[in-house]
C-alpha cells in the first residue's frame, strides 16, 4: 500500500518517518499584496485556496544552509504574541546572476512558499510579509556566494505562524504553483 498522509498529524503505518528539511529547488516568492489565501482551518492549519495577482518567482537555493525557523515571542508590556519567521538560503558563487537575484529581494514585501521534504507546502509572511533582512557575501569556500535571510521587521512581525497550503492534494498544489510561476 502506498504511503499517504491524512489531513491531521496521524500517519499511516506504511509512511515511516517524515523527512526533515526543505526542498531547496522548490521555493517561490511573491509580493505580499498580490497573494490571497483562503481561510486557514483552525483544526488542520491548512488553507485550501490561493489566488496570485502576479507571477510567482521561483527561487532555487543551494541545499547547504537552506532553513526556516519561526520564533514566537510575547511582548512584556502588552502581552501580544507575535512570530518572527526567518528563511535562510545561499546562492552559491560570486557572479552577476547571483547579484541580480539577491537584489530582487530589496525593497519588497513578500510571501514565501517552500516545499518541505515531507511534501508539505509551507507559507510564511501572509500577515506582515518578509523582507531581505541580512545578506552576507563572501569569497571563501565556507561562505562562497550570497547568504540571504528573509524575515519580518521588528516593527512589523507576523501575527500568526506559518500555515500549510494544500489545494486538493499534493500533486494539484504543485501544479498550481508551477502554473503561476513566471513564464
Amino acid at each position, binding site marked *: 500500500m502506498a504511503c*499517504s*498522509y*491524512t*489531513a491531521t498529524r496521524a500517519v499511516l503505518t506504511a509512511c515511516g518517518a517524515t523527512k526533515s528539511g526543505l*526542498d531547496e*529547488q*522548490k521555493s517561490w516568492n511573491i509580493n505580499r499584496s498580490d497573494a490571497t489565501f483562503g481561510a486557514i482551518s483552525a483544526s488542520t492549519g491548512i488553507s485550501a485556496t490561493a489566488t496570485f495577482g502576479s507571477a510567482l518567482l521561483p527561487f532555487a537555493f543551494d541545499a547547504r544552509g537552506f532553513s526556516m525557523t519561526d520564533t514566537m515571542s510575547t511582548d512584556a508590556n502588552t502581552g501580544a504574541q507575535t512570530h518572527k519567521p526567518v528563511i535562510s538560503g545561499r546562492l552559491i558563487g560570486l557572479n552577476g546572476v547571483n547579484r541580480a537575484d539577491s537584489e530582487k529581494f530589496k525593497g519588497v514585501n513578500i510571501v514565501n512558499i517552500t516545499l518541505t521534504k515531507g*511534501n508539505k507546502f509551507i507559507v510564511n509572511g501572509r500577515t506582515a510579509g518578509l523582507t531581505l533582512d541580512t545578506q552576507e557575501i563572501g569569497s571563501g569556500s565556507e561562505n562562497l556566494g550570497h547568504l540571504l535571510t528573509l524575515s519580518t521587521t521588528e516593527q512589523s512581525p507576523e501575527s500568526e505562524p506559518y500555515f500549510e497550503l*494544500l*489545494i*486538493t*492534494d*499534493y*500533486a*494539484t498544489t*504543485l*501544479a*498550481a504553483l*508551477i*502554473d503561476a*510561476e513566471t*513564464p
Partner: protein
Amino acid sequence: MNTPVKAQGSASPKYKIRGSAKSFGIPGFPNAEYTEDHLNGEHGEMIVRALKKKNAAAFAKLVEEVK
C-alpha cells in the same frame, strides 16, 4: 489525502493516459502522481497547463488529448 474532484456535468473526458497506466509521474514534478481524475477534474486545465509548461514533450508521450 483528498482526491481530485471530477468536473461536474462535463461530457467525455478531454485527457486520457496512454497505455494501461492509471497514473504517471513527470520530470519537474517530484513525488507527484497524476491520474485522469486530475487531468479532467476541477483543476484539470490548470494542471495540464503546468505540465505542458514544464515538460511538453513528456506530457505528449504520456497523455492523449481526446478530440
